[in-house]
């Protein structure tokens, strides 16, 4: 019924300059600790509460190396908190979110383990800007290395408080008491008090300024076990409520009018007819045109009644010329020390070489295509906006919504229901902002679920990239020179893990063509594809076994260990037993974990048909928190990696996406499955690293190397786009 015209601008699809790998970083807003503590017991009732404060800014998981964040800007912030209620209920709080990577389960295990309570008694509150501590976001494989220790610290402190409370009550030294199974026991006196009994009548809050020792992996009892996913039953019965499933009362359904091409602006818009439709709210604001109605079909009819004219100014470059474009448009600013790493003398390394090789590699833009599209439910009540949305960055979305609506952040609450996957694709709050704008105008709850076409078009992509490599080898098979240039796709894992005395490694940024952002193993996948394909090319040129060649140039023991484990399981060196058979190997390290993958393919004589028949991946990420969840992540990343290797590619022209459907953007399906095995190396002596990303990296180069072994034809572009 209403047409709103106040100031509101929405990103029409082109983001500003990117930060390599960490595109979406922005300054965090300060969390108000005093307020939180005051409210804390109101929300949860009496009991014992522990708040962990990062020892220094660098210890905050949010400050994981990112050049834009300077320590003085970081809040002296709480990273996690935990509450033990008078009934013994344990509730732990973290700003991290669950998007299918099974963090809810692994974090629950870690809290239960450290607090010495049964797994089933811990409730984890995640990703709610009103209830959980500030968090930069769930990305970069940071949940396990950064959040697990924080939660363990608060659990450990809570355990000590309970032991001390019991010691005081019994008037015995705390050192004589033991905590186990949600009880503090005096073994000598054979008596115990439950945590519930000890928490009764207390409203005790304690800050944790210093890092306390936490239980080492060798002594874990609940962590380290292959425990089932928390709330697993709700997922096989359809009971779990994703954002898309929420149905508050008086709900309206939203539809957004999208521009015909990226960068188009609204020249004129006549929404009178649409606004006159019964029960319809239309908003035209800047380049935003949206409608909300009690049924989705009604909102669609309203959009159809709007007459909009767009001024288009699409980029001329298409997916066919993109790689030349990237080379020609590299920013001269990339030549800074941060983007360029040099070692030894490249000239010297090249001059004494027995073999020299130069090749270039490309990776296409690809989409995350999470099965649950971007979606949000927004409710405007008492001047406050509450939003349920599947995002990896609830606090950033809160800022985005507050800025877009010009309301204070304290009037915005973002809640993240456990989400239908993300893979790095849900960092932004586009759907949240759109739903919020309509909800504010309609003064009723609004749900927006992006269509698959919107998802493929208006989300962001993994950037395309061009990588040029030059290398040299001496007569004994040692690498003597390594030159590596990445254009556009990012600098993560750009360094070679191999021992090379003379190196030049450089990342060249290029202004965006398509809107780009994070992705599972974003630039690491591109850099590993180029490096590990090139390593195979060098080995073949020198007539060396690809595994032996790698090992003879590698002193990193953890990388050697995964290579050897994968090779052993796979049976390397393999023997060709049939026509068209080929074998490939690749390996790498990123974000503190290590991967090696071996692949067997069958190809036809013309080398344009390929079947990946077997895949073995060895993976090591320090001490394993949950081998069950880890296996799912490793195998899942491998299968997703096959998509990027074999056929996933976004096609675009004139500012339009040409294949915005699952019928034209091919993702791995059951027929694409190889026989697949994961070897998980458990290093209890090494702190746990994240595992969501690294296992994807070696799939494409191993498959490409196998294809070369089978056919003699080298594939230097991802995807290979063969008939599979």
């Amino acid at each position: 019924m209403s047409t709103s015209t106040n100031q509101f601008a929405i990103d029409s699809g082109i983001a500003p300059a990117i930060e390599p790998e960490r595109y979406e970083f922005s300054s965090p807003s300060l969390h108000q600790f005093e307020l939180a503590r005051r409210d804390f017991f109101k929300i949860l009732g009496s009991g014992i509460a522990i708040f962990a404060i990062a020892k220094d800014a660098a210890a905050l998981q949010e400050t994981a190396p990112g050049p834009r964040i300077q320590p003085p800007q970081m809040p002296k912030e709480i990273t996690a908190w935990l509450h033990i209620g008078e009934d013994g209920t344990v509730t732990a709080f973290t700003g991290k979110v669950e998007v299918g990577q099974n963090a809810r389960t692994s974090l629950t295990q870690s809290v239960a383990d450290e607090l010495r309570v049964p797994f089933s008694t811990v409730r984890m509150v995640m990703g709610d800007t009103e209830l959980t501590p500030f968090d930069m976001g769930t990305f970069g494989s940071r949940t396990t290395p950064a959040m697990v220790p924080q939660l363990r610290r608060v659990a450990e402190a809570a355990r000590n408080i309970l032991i001390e409370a019991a010691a005081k009550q019994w008037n015995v030294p705390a050192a004589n008491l033991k905590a186990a199974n949600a009880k503090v026991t005096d073994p000598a006196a054979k008596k115990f008090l439950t945590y519930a009994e000890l928490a009764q009548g207390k409203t005790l809050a304690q800050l944790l300024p210093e890092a306390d020792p936490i239980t080492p992996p060798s002594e874990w009892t609940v962590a380290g076990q292959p425990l089932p996913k928390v709330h697993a039953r709700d997922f096989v019965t359809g009971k779990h409520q994703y954002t898309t499933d929420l149905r508050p009362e008086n709900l309206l359904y939203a539809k957004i009018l999208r521009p015909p091409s990226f960068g188009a602006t609204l020249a004129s818009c006549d929404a009178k007819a649409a606004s006159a439709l019964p029960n319809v709210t239309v908003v035209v604001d800047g380049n935003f045109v949206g409608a909300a109605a009690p049924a989705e079909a009604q909102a669609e009819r309203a959009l159809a009644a709007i007459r909009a004219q767009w001024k288009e100014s699409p980029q001329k470059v298409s997916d066919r010329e993109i790689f030349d474009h990237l080379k020609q448009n590299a920013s001269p600013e990339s030549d800074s020390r941060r983007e360029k790493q040099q070692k030894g003398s490249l000239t010297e390394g090249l001059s004494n070489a027995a073999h020299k090789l130069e090749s270039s590699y490309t990776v296409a833009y690809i989409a995350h295509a999470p099965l649950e599209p971007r979606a949000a439910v927004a409710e405007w009540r008492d001047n406050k906006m509450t939003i349920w949305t599947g995002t990896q960055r609830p606090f950033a979305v809160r800022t985005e919504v507050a800025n877009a609506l010009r309301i204070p952040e304290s009037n915005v609450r973002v809640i993240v229901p456990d989400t239908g996957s993300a893979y790095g694709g849900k960092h932004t709050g586009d759907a949240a902002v759109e739903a919020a704008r309509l909800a504010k105008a309609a003064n009723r709850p609004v749900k927006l679920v992006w269509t698959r076409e919107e998802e493929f078009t208006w989300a962001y992509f993994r950037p395309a990239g061009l990588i040029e490599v030059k290398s040299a080898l001496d007569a004994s098979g040692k690498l003597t020179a390594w030159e590596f240039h990445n254009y556009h796709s990012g600098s993560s894992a750009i360094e070679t893990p191999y021992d090379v005395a003379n190196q030049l490694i450089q990342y060249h940024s290029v202004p965006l063509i398509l809107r780009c952002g994070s992705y599972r193993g974003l630039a690491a996948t591109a850099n590993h594809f180029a490096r590990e394909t090139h390593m195979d090319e060098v080995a073949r040129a020198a007539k060396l076994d690809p595994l032996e060649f790698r090992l003879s140039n590698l002193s990193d023991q953890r990388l050697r260990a995964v290579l050897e484990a994968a090779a052993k399981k796979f049976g390397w060196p393999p023997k060709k037993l049939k026509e068209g058979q080929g074998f490939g190997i690749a390996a790498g390290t990123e974000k503190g974990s290590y991967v090696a993958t071996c692949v067997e393919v069958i190809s036809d004589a013309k080398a344009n048909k390929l079947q990946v028949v077997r895949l073995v991946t060895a993976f090591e990420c320090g001490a394993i928190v949950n081998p069950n969840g880890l296996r799912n992540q490793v195998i899942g990343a491998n299968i997703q990696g096959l998509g990027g290797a074999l056929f996933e590619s976004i096609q675009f022209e004139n500012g339009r996406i040409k294949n915005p459907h699952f019928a034209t953007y091919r993702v791995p399906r059951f027929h694409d499955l190889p026989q697949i095995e994961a070897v998980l190396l458990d290093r209890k002596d090494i702190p746990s690293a994240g595992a969501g990303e690294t296992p994807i990296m070696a799939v494409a180069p191993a498959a490409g190397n196998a294809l070369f072994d089978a056919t003699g034809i080298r594939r230097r572009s991802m995807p290979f786009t063969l008939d599979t």
Partner: protein
Amino acid sequence: MSQSFQLQINGQHQSVQADPDAPLLAILRDHLGLTGSKYGCGEGQCGSCTVLLDGAPRRSCVTPVSAAAGKSITTIEGLEESGRLHPVQQAFLDAEAFQCAYCTSGMIMSSVALLKQNSNPTQSEIEQALQGNICRCGTHPRIIEAVQKAAQASREQRS
């Protein structure tokens, strides 16, 4: 224009007022609150919305409500019997054949339909039956394992 349709959903009679070409998925989710069937693409390409019509798997996002009237409709919510999971649900749970689990309802419905037709499917028959269902998390090997386990459990139950 809006019409009245008589639907038989999970053994219960439901009357809904809807456009004849309204997708069954929207009726299930928005009118009846049966949100276990998911919207993944709206184009019949991903299988997240799979329900059974007279026992056969159908993409409810591209099935007009008029085509579902008079047929027996089964959704994920209709599989449990007096608190007991269907053998396929139990097998998915036991194998933990999901990660984000957004595809799980559709995978389970397609698998239930397969096992009705074929009590002892080969791996290749399972792959064929589930080819239209996308799992973006890459949990396919466990899904195959779950279907095999469910087939075995169902056979044992019968014998």
